[in-house]
């Protein structure tokens, strides 16, 4: 049933997203409207259903293999020497963390639930933030956000500077050296490959299909639909199961909403964290601090006008 609902809401969201995309083709046209809750598609992950079988990971790998890097070797000599070569091409089978060849992995934790020790498994991938810093702070526009909320990195444009990873609160994007546009520019002095991460099967969604991880899940862990509906469902599920929500408010809101009957602070302590293994900590809105200055930016010319007029008035009074 969950899967039926997810397909129905997904298709409805797809229509709204397509309409939004048409409006968005004119620069700035949709900026004023910004119907985020209606056009962005979110996924709800009911973690109590996840059995950690890895079917989603396998499906992700099979479906997205054609997008994976195919680096040229030997890699260009990098200057200065501190620039790290990141090569995953010989470790493509690594599946216990995020890599350029593995955009989704299962995170494990042993937690105490109702007095019993229990293993929890969570599919982890890009959270697809509502206002993604990886997209907004990319200096070249190589990372982009689609109208349906998917953030993806264009591997034809990305130079592999890894800024997106540094500004991502979860360090999601992963770099592969020796591939991409930088090889054609100044391979030794600028750039270092291409950054890779989950693109939530944007091409499949454009064809009206579900993302591979959702389609393949035997337990219907994930549901996809318009963000406002997914948020409502997440709250209903959390209420029903005395559960806890992660992803709704984090980083100002994401399009990946986890529901689990264990506090995420507790779960965060239990999971293995580190490189390619994102945390589950609360995350403040990283874009908000600068964006809060936008009002001051609008008022700045008013201050300039006031100062000039004040000078004029003072000068006029003095000359009389």
């Amino acid at each position, binding site marked *: 049933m969950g899967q039926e609902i997810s397909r129905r809401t997904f298709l409805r969201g797809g229509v709204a997203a397509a309409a939004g995309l048409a409006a968005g083709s004119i*620069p700035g046209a949709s900026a004023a409207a*910004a119907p985020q809750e209606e056009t962005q598609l979110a996924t709800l992950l009911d973690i109590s259903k996840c059995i950690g079988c890895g079917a989603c990971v396998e499906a992700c790998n099979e479906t997205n293999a054609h997008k994976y890097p195919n680096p040229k070797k030997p890699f260009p000599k990098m200057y200065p020497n501190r620039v790290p070569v990141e090569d995953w091409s010989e470790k493509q089978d690594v599946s216990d963390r995020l890599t350029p060849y593995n955009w989704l992995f299962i995170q494990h934790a042993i937690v105490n639930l109702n007095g019993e020790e229990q293993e929890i498994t969570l599919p982890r991938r890009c959270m697809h933030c509502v*206002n993604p810093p990886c997209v907004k702070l990319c200096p070249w526009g190589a990372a982009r956000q689609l109208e349906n909320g998917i953030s993806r990195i264009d591997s034809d444009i990305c130079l592999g500077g890894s800024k997106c990873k540094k500004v991502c609160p979860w360090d999601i994007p992963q770099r592969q050296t020796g591939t991409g546009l930088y090889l054609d520019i100044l391979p030794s002095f600028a750039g270092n490959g291409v950054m890779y991460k989950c693109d939530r099967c944007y091409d499949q969604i454009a064809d009206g299909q579900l993302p591979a991880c959702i389609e393949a899940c035997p337990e219907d862990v994930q549901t996809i639909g318009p963000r406002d509906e997914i948020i409502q469902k997440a709250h209903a599920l959390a209420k029903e199961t005395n559960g806890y929500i992660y992803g709704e408010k984090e980083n100002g809101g994401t399009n990946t909403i986890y529901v689990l009957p264990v506090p995420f602070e507790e779960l965060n302590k239990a999971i293995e964290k580190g490189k390619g293994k994102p945390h589950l900590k609360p995350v403040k809105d990283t874009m908000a601090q600068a964006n809060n200055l936008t009002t001051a*930016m609008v008022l*700045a010319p008013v201050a*300039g006008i006031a100062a*000039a007029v004040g000078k*004029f008035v003072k*000068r006029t009074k003095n000359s009389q």
Partner: protein
Amino acid sequence: MRVQQTDRSKTPNRAVRYVYLITVFFLTLTGFGQMPIFKRYYIADIPGFGWLAQFYVTHYIHYLGAILILALVTYMIIDYLILQKKRIRLTASGYVRGTILAGILVSGLLLVIRNLAGSQFAPGFIILLDLAHLGLVMAFLMAAGYCLVRKRSWVTSQ
């Protein structure tokens, strides 16, 4: 910004000029800091410059600089229109620099809008904005360098 100095305007214009120069310096520094180059090329390793490798810090300071430059530019335009127009006029190099600066401000403001939650510009337009913003800054620095060497002022007496 070299302005024809007169007895009446010398002191306030000097203050505006220094604020303008400091603002442009930090805008340029933090603007280049949006690219991952300061850490790669050891500049952030220099004591006191570590903040240049912190993208959210440089981003925030860039916004503060943008607020200042908008206020300053507006002040100078209005001051020119209501007080200075009869005494001074823009030189050719002033027009060139002013036009480039206007392009930087417009592309920068569009990028600020792009950064707001919910804004959706076409991907090609965002790339154009990023490249235009950077390219115009490079052009402005070259024009400013040329004017500094050749002692060209923004304005001259009528």
